[in-house]
């Protein structure tokens, strides 16, 4: 009971952050950054497997940058094999 109360007292600390500056995409238009991060994540997955921790950086990048419509469209294109870039490592 007291252990439960103690656990509930400490709030879960969350760190909110976004994608850092990338010199390849220095302007306001980050669409290419979104696309590149998506491609890099899937290339990373295909090369190293899904549990490789450094791939998570790309995953965070594209999930922050890309509009959700685009993410679902890219996923559908990937399923259908019509994704417009090569995802081979």
């Amino acid at each position, binding site marked *: 009971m007291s252990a439960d109360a103690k656990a509930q007292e400490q709030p879960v600390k969350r760190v909110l952050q976004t994608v850092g500056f*990338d*010199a*390849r*995409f*220095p302007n306001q238009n980050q669409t*290419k950054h979104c696309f590149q991060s998506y491609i890099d994540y899937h290339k990373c997955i295909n090369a190293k497997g899904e549990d490789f921790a450094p791939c998570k950086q790309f995953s965070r990048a594209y999930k922050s940058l890309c509009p959700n419509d685009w993410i679902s469209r890219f996923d559908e294109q990937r399923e259908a094999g019509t994704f417009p870039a090569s995802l081979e490592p």
Partner: protein
Amino acid sequence: MVAAQVARRSLMKQWFAIEAIPIYVILGGALSGASWYLYRLGTRPDIIWTRKNPEPWQSVKQNENTKFMAINREFDRKWTREKL
């Protein structure tokens, strides 16, 4: 024969008007400036020219600046386009 030479000289006088030289100078300056600017635009890392360099933006390192002036951030050097 003489008539042909007279006709050619009057044609020369017509299309190269000596009093229009300032216009030629200003027009030449504007055209050369515009073409130089287009050349500069063509060297940006977003532009793909050849199949040998399909992703030029990947050659930009994280401490290189691609813009004309860097205001808010320090960069070590300016990016230059190595491959066409």
